[in-house]
């Protein structure tokens, strides 16, 4: 019976054969639109929120193509931490007015396009060549978290350790950076 079977994966409902392309075709333009907004919007907070939307949609994309673990981690880290950090520092730094940004825009956009269009051309060229590879037809099986854990702590154990050291250093370093220099945090009255 249908209901007795555990679902397990979020994307299962999409990975039925006739549905597998649809989420990609729907999500990709949305992601690109949100990213375009993040690049284009003059108001910094809007740009940051649109970046969060774009990254969240990428997380949904991962979920639909079977990388559940990565998708959820992406959502947690990018939407829950990175976007919040960016928004928070935007609030603290009170970025300058948008009029200046908009006035500068025609010049900067032309310069930017001159630099990025060749990159885009090269990338599109490479992708169009790659699309013909026979490997594109294969679909790898979905992995379980247990498998991730096993691989992570055997084959990639050194990398895990390095990342752990890096994150610790980052935590201490960021805390030191962000502190007001020469000022000890103080309690108002009673401590």
């Amino acid at each position, binding site marked *: 019976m249908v209901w007795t079977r555990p679902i397990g994966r979020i994307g299962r409902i999409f990975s039925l054969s006739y549905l597998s392309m649809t989420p990609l075709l729907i999500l990709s333009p949305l992601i690109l639109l949100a*990213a375009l907004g*993040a690049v284009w919007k003059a108001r910094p907070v809007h740009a940051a929120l649109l970046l969060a939307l774009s990254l969240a949609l990428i997380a949904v994309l991962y979920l639909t*193509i079977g990388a559940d673990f990565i998708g959820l981690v992406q959502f947690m880290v990018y939407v829950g931490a990175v976007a919040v950090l960016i928004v928070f520092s935007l609030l603290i730094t009170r970025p300058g007015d948008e009029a200046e940004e908009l006035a500068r825009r025609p010049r900067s956009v032309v310069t930017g396009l001159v630099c990025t269009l060749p990159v885009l051309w090269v990338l599109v060229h490479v992708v169009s060549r790659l699309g013909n590879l026979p490997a594109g037809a294969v679909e790898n099986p979905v992995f379980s978290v247990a498998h991730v854990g096993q691989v992570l702590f055997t084959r990639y154990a050194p990398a895990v350790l390095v990342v752990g050291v890096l994150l610790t250093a980052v935590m201490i370093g960021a805390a030191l950076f962000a502190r007001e220099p020469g000022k000890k945090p103080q309690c108002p009255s009673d401590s």
Partner: protein
Amino acid sequence: MTPLTILLTLSTFLFTLGLLAVLTRRNAILILVGIELMLNAANVNFIAFWRYGPPDPDLTGPLFVLFSIAIAAAEAAVGLALILMVFRHTRSTDLNRLDSLHG
């Protein structure tokens, strides 16, 4: 058109948009936004090649993305802390104003 080409096209445009943001923005925090977009474009590629590429029992693609996400978070934290320090020093996050070495 295969799923792989869709994902690769997506990541191509995402990367270009990120690059455009980095090149056109002046606010340091918004440049970080562009960098995050580019990182994510790369991540999409890793996932796409794991899913629709040759067999991958070691999960190289997803795990690379996992590490990349961890490092991106670290990078964002340190980057924003640095930007905050700079802001405290110059009262601005506009990179064009940071043209002097002796602050």
